[in-house]
């Protein structure tokens, strides 16, 4: 059976294919096919494995494939026949290599952990397995999530299926590329300063960074624990919405998670207030962004606002120009602290002896500024700036429901091209603010500049993901 999901010819990564509707199957349609028996879980896995075998040599999105995937699919098929299958039954889910999946290689794309096999399941994996999702493999990424381009992996860079030769974005490069290239149904990534939304934008797929505290990080190998969140990738908003609904919720093993029952996502009230949605645009984002990219996004916002009779308001976010400068001291210090366990004793190798330049820069930088912190010049001031940015967003959400801007402020560079660390860090100028403010944000494909996909970022107030999904679906309809 040839699925429309897989209908592109092998290796034919034409950009039009990624933009126009018709190449997409909603995740619910796929689930329907599997549950009706039109497509078995086993055939679904075999189709993906065949495609990966043929095409992943040039994308390099997977580091490790699940050797038991067919046996697991057969067991799910039996559950489907018995009418006992869960919500993700038979779907292939790719997982970033910094999330523990029992028995699989969780290398963080590093030499440090290249021999490390996870002895337990992260909370999110446990939930996916409970709903009969199948982990197809572990994806490539920037080494220890240190990077915004997908280039810093010790297993060679990930390539961008949407525009070969250009960076796929990072750090969840392999997860975004695997979804983009149709190597899986859904994927998981982690987002500390944009590591889900950034590659989602470059690879022309949908990616969500949930509210801080909505998804358990138990079993995530952390980059910066005060900012990290695990989130989903899909080709469509409904796929992201589905996977998020499975992985969210309080976990006793992650003290930052909250009980969702106290944050009622009232779908009914969203429906009732649908006509009074107010979109926020900000010149403070516009100042940080390439003009052509910003104008494309602004035009799309005007189209959806006109269509739905929504109001557009201009808001001030006066401290977001400090986001990058606040983020990196926090990240350097917390990453330095997190890596002290990689001393080569209990597992892996000593990190400083086998890591690449970007990981070493963050370890050495984190060590230096930790020693110099007595004046509060780095971490303490960064925390203050984080607080100010958070306050800016809290004030903005008193006036508007959704804030929209481009996901990435500039066009991607070629893989292997020479740029400065500051230029690399500036890729995340639009995504970092959501991490600092602890709010949810989603990147949705919004168009092309030449051959380059452009993502639109939508942000809402904390725990208001349902509104994000509904508005993002309006953007999706413009395809």
């Amino acid at each position: 059976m040839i699925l429309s999901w897989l209908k592109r010819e092998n290796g034919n990564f034409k950009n039009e294919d990624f933009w126009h509707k018709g190449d997409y199957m909603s995740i619910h349609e796929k689930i329907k096919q599997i549950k009706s028996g039109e497509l078995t879980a086993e055939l679904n896995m075999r189709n993906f494995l065949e495609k990966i075998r043929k095409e992943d040599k040039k994308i390099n999105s997977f580091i490790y494939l699940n050797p038991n995937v067919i046996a697991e699919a057969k067991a799910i098929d039996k559950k489907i026949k018995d009418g006992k299958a869960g919500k993700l039954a038979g779907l292939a889910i790719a997982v970033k290599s910094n999330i523990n999946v029992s028995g699989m290689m969780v290398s963080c794309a590093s030499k440090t952990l290249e021999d490390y096999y996870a002895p337990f399941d992260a909370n999110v994996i446990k939930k996916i397995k409970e709903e009969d999702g199948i982990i197809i493999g572990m994806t490539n990424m920037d080494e220890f999530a240190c990077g915004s381009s997908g280039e810093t992996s010790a297993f060679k860079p990930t390539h961008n299926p949407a525009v070969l030769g250009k960076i796929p974005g990072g750090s969840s490069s392999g997860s975004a590329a695997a979804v983009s290239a149709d190597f899986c149904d859904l994927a998981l990534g982690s987002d500390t300063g944009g590591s889900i939304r950034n590659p989602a934008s470059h690879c022309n797929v949908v990616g969500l960074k949930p509210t801080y505290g909505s998804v358990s990080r138990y079993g995530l190998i952390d980059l910066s624990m005060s900012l990290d969140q695990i989130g989903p990738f899909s080709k469509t908003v409904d796929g992201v919405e589905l996977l998020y609904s499975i992985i969210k919720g309080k976990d006793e093993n992650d003290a930052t998670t909250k009980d969702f029952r106290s944050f009622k996502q009232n779908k009914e009230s969203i429906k009732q207030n649908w006509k009074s949605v107010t979109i926020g645009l900000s010149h403070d984002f516009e100042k940080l962004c390439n003009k052509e990219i910003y104008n494309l996004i602004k035009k799309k916002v005007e189209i959806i606002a006109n269509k739905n009779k929504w109001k557009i308001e201009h808001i001030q976010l006066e401290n977001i120009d400090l986001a990058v400068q606040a983020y990196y001291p926090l990240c350097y210090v917390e990453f330095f602290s997190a890596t002290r366990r990689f001393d080569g004793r209990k597992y892996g190798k000593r990190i400083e002896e086998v890591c690449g330049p970007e990981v070493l820069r963050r370890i050495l930088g984190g060590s230096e500024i930790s020693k110099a912190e007595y004046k509060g010049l780095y971490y303490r001031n960064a925390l203050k700036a984080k607080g100010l940015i958070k306050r800016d967003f809290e004030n903005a959400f008193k006036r508007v429901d959704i804030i929209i801007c481009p996901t990435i402020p500039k066009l991607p560079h070629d893989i292997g091209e020479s740029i400065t660390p500051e230029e690399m860090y500036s890729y995340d100028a639009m995504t970092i603010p959501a991490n600092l403010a602890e709010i949810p944000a989603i990147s949705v494909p919004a168009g092309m500049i030449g051959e380059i996909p452009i993502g639109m970022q939508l942000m809402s107030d904390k725990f208001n993901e349902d509104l994000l999904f509904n508005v993002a679906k309006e953007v999706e309809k413009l395809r």
Partner: protein
Amino acid sequence: MDFLWHLVSEEERENIKKEAKRIMDSFAKALAKVGNERVDESIIRTEQTRKETNAECDESFRKMFMNNAPEKDDDFILAEKGKWKLQK
């Protein structure tokens, strides 16, 4: 410079250290403008204890954990380096 992964030489290591400090100093300069403005930054917890679940112990955990250890002696991970290791 490109961002492709490679092992770092001693000379490059020194340069990276200096560069990291330079970047952090330039960021600190920008952050100095936040001045003494006080911002509340805290996590408020209403519960101070963790609820224990009745989850069963995974029997394979110990075996998999031991398999990851670079050096072990029967049922023990040899976690010390340097002096103690030399004595052995």
